[in-house]
């Protein structure tokens, strides 16, 4: 929580030009927050459907989430999947986290940071 707040303040102070640098700084440090969001039943709740390292009682409607860097080198693709997988696959059961306001942009970035540690 504290991390997230300081990140916000930093981002606000730094402004647009060096925003990219702040983002890459946060990439490593937001991962623990991302894990919390991914495991939280009221937020990502990704374990309902995905096996994830260190995650208790996972379901299996979706594939195990591992080896993310190798499989999704393009960060944009992961952001798109977590934001609204129905765009890629209209029949997917994966909830459209962004469209349905379950996760906001910042939270999705944090979850993706976490995914890249898998």
């Amino acid at each position: 929580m504290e991390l997230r707040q300081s990140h916000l303040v930093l981002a606000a102070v730094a402004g647009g030009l060096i925003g990219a640098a702040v983002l890459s700084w946060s990439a490593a440090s937001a991962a623990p927050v991302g894990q919390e969001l991914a495991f939280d039943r009221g937020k990502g709740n990704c374990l309902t459907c995905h096996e994830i390292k260190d995650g208790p009682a996972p379901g299996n409607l979706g594939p195990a989430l591992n080896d993310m860097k190798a499989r999704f080198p393009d960060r944009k693709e992961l952001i798109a999947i977590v934001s609204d997988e129905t765009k890629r696959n209209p029949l997917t059961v994966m909830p459209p986290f962004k469209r349905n306001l379950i996760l906001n942009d910042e939270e999705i970035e944090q979850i993706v940071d976490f995914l890249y540690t898998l």
Partner: protein
Amino acid sequence: MLRKLFVAAVFVVGAAQPLLADNAVDPQADFKAFREYFTKRFPKVQLDDFVNGPYSMDEGLRKQWKAIEEFPPYEFAVDHGKEAFAKPFKNGKTLGDCFPNKGVGIRQNYPYFDTKSGEVITLELALNQCLEANGEKPLDYTSQEMAALTAYMAFTSRGKPFDIKIPNDPRALAAYRSGEEYFYTRRGQLNFSCASCHVQSPGGHIRTEVLAPALGILNAMPIFRSEWGNMGTITRRFQTCNSQVRGVPLPGQDVLYRNVEYYLSYMGNGLPISGPGARP
């Protein structure tokens, strides 16, 4: 994985098409396609075994089930329901007086389409209508008392195949269609239809729960769930499933719930009543 999704896609799109195309409603054709989808996807599951819900999908669970059934946790509800059926109202009549054959061995005929009121009448609704017609207080649709009554009626009907009729009445077909549409429509913050879980994903695990197939999904109702520590009526189960996807559950026995029940029960035609059921 992909192939599974693809097969589900064909089925779901196929079922949704008449909804969009304004074709004539054809329950018989739906029934055939629905049954074929499940028997093809689960060729090793015996047709009559689908009524056992999650147990038909998972060997490990089935073993636990056999152990649970040695001391059936719903037995108490069946006994209680039996007593309640025989107990006279203030006016001297009984619940049994409202039903054919005193309510014994008739569960497989519900819901039915009542051509007088133009509505689907489920068992839970019929029970409350009986209470009210006799000056008694209706029961909460999610209560243990309601579950006890339907548990008793299911128990005395075990093995009898679902025999749901859709009379050739445009209102009956419209009710059926509305139930079908409800079943395949996504809703809730999590964006699920009933079919997302029970047609697309049966046998899959949501956390540790094994999803029941939609074929025969009502035959075992009501159920005792160890997780709840008590009985659940059909109403309770529908409302719980709606809540799980952060949707808005309908009021008990809302016309839409009754229509869904009509649709699903018709899809279960020919499969034996197995209720009351016991679930993890």
